[in-house]
């Protein structure tokens, strides 16, 4: 590819852990191929380009932006809007940007509760005066500003329109490379698609399935599963049955159930609901009360277990406020 034909690529991170960045770096020397195909115009972790340089660009000047992390603060919201405006193709990269990931479980609480827990209630917090972080603080020497912490964590597409999704927490390096290749070769699927496999983790899992039904769900610390047969059929809540393939069934291969980090499989609108249906299908009971008992016993936190990675992006999205609306109102 000639210099003139080089596209412009940006990578950005919002409310994320940095694992997506490590995953990108794990493509190792192929990062040089990426650099050969693209001018990387923004990548805070690796290159010296500044947000104000992006602000000066024409709208749509960036060809592709890989955006990881959810949106929890006013700063992150601004960056999502900026990158959307400047990019022809915006990719929600990884679980946080796609569906909220683990930090999305914060939507089961409100900002006020987060603040009260972190800055008041914890045993080592010494804060008799109930000091809390403020958007603006007047110190003797002047004013200090913090971004606003919103009440709800949003996914990228709840903030701005998104063209593609790359699932995984984090995406496996091989899948990242495939996506980059598709971008370079112009073989991307139709806009709105998830760039990934259409099957489930079960299809990649070497374990044997016997179409066995179960009478009880076990929590991971309650049994030592055998290493050969399906974990779900041994009574563990393995999410593989309703989770998109792409990782190579890594967790089941170390005798741990899939926790669903690749999100819902193709064509599924609400991953948690799909998983619930899938789990129900293996329960060996017909009496509703018995079924309820089995679920209550073995899955004591249905929202956290079924929507572990997908809550913020799901139909549920967040818990309802019961009282005291003003205190938790989003800014």
């Amino acid at each position, binding site marked *: 590819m000639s210099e003139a034909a080089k596209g412009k690529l940006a990578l950005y991170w919002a409310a994320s852990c940095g694992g997506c960045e490590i995953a990108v770096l794990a493509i190792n020397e192929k990062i040089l191929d990426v650099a050969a195909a693209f001018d990387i115009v923004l990548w805070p972790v690796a290159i010296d380009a500044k947000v104000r340089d992006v602000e000066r660009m024409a709208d749509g000047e960036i060809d592709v932006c890989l955006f990881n992390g959810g949106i*929890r603060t006013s700063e992150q919201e601004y960056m999502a809007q900026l990158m959307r405006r400047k990019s022809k193709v915006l990719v929600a990269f990884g679980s946080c940007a796609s569906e909220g990931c683990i930090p999305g*479980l914060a939507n089961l609480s409100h900002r006020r509760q987060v603040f009260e827990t972190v800055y008041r209630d914890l045993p080592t917090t010494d*804060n008799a005066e109930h000091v809390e972080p403020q958007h603006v603080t007047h110190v003797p020497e002047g004013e200090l500003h913090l971004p606003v912490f919103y009440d709800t964590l949003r996914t990228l597409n709840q903030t701005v329109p998104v063209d593609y999704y790359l699932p995984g927490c984090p995406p496996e390096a091989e899948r990242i490379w495939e996506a980059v290749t598709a971008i370079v070769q112009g073989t991307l699927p139709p806009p709105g698609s998830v760039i990934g496999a259409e099957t489930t983790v079960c299809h990649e899992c070497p374990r044997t399935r016997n179409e066995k039904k179960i009478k009880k769900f076990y929590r991971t610390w309650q049994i030592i599963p055998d290493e050969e047969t399906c974990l779900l059929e041994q009574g563990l809540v393995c999410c593989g049955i309703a989770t998109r393939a792409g990782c190579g069934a890594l967790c089941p291969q170390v005798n741990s159930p899939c926790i669903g980090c690749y999100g819902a499989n193709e064509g599924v609108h609400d991953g948690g609901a799909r998983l619930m249906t899938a789990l129900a299908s293996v329960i060996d009971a017909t009496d509703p009360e018995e079924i309820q008992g089995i679920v209550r016993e073995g899955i004591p*936190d249905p929202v956290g277990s079924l929507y572990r990675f997908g809550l913020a992006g799901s139909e549920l999205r967040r818990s309802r406020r019961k009282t005291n609306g003003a205190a938790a109102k989003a800014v």
Partner: protein
Amino acid sequence: MKRISIDPVTRLEGHGKIDIFLNDEGDVANVYLQIPELRGFERFCIGRPAEEMPNLTARICGVCPEAHHMAATKALDDLFHVDPPPAAKKLRELLYSIFYATDHTTHFYALGGPDFVMGPTAPVAERNILGVVQKVGMDIAGRVLKMRRDGHHLIKMMGGRAVHPNWGLPGGVSRGIQEDQRQEIERLGRDAVEFAKFSLQLFADVVLKNSDYVKLITGDIYVHRTYNMGTVDANGHVNFYDGQIRVVGPEGQEHARYAARDYQHYVAERVEPWTYLKFPYLKKIGWQGFVDGVDSGVYKATPLSRLNAAEGMATPLAQAEYLKFYDALGGKPVQHTLATHWARLIELLYAAERWVELATDPEITSKEYRVLPTQTPTEGVGCVEAPRGTLTHHYVTDERGLLTQVNLIVGTTNNNAAISLSVKKAAQQLIRKGQVVTEGLLNMVEMAFRAYDPCFGCATHSLPGQMPLEVVVRDACGVVQQRLSQFLGSGDEGRDVP
């Protein structure tokens, strides 16, 4: 009043921000280090089953997920009152040693090392890993990449995934290792020992033989007489995975030595309205503000702190380097922040030696790597030494093991106040009577940061030590007078004056 803002690439990055205020005489009046993000794990983990924690808390930081995974797993042992079999503890420590060697390698070669190998006054464009490669030879890049690749490969093999393993359980781990895997782990571990020795030799040749560097390390700019924290084994040696937490005072005297479970008697956290990140301090000493000394509860928890808090290293080659270290720097404790880089390499050697020790332990391939808990869960604390400081997870549950309280004191957070001190001191040295030492300010402040390897991934999400800085000098009306920028590995001149 004049203000100097030091932002990551811009104030919109969400990483960290330093505001330096000058008084009317043009001297530094105060410095504020702000962390502009919060995710609230301590709140949203409430109600979750406790066994979720090794996987949930790994997402605090994608740079050191192994540390959170391990601290959480140990907290579950305590919570469920279960003692893992010896092989389980050894497997965990093995994976953790591999992680340490990998992580310390990244820091030294990509982040902290270039300042020394290339020199702190080298052009910005050369002060990076590529500059290091050019100076010391192409071979080194291959060795660094191999070290990282080996580490990630083995962590994935043992823990299921290279980033965010899914492996730890109360009472053990989900799967052990086979003999063929053990052989590979041992072989790569021996490579790691050679790599660590090579790294220390490089440091000796390039840094210690240069009197300018030695002067910089032992000079006044980077000294803070604070308390030091680290985990020690029964013999008082540094241990990353388990032991008692020991805190020594500014002169090296023992302040405390306690089991993880007692942490809340020794550590408290202060809240300030201008940052989302709390400031831990030693509870029995108390919070006296951002000052060092024996009366201030500010402490450091870094590779250097761990060496200071211990009596030595548990492996022979690392112990020899430990003695050399204190001999060269005038005895214990060493309070020179920049010596942290050297301490990190000694820890790299220890991690690699321990890796081989555990890989050759006859018990490591045992099938007894897990026992099931039988008691009702109540309350548990788990501590490990994260590369960037003592990491504490504390859980309380109901009788079904659903969490009712979660307290986390993460690696870098321990150093929040100490980093603020370092930045303030560097600023005070470099800004006098309104004179801003432009290039010096940038790099010296950045070096003050980098020594701590600050991973605000745990608080925000910047990779360790990679603090892209921008300094904005404003006059009293807030008008930008000068703008300087710098980024590790950048090709620009570090200067951008509008």
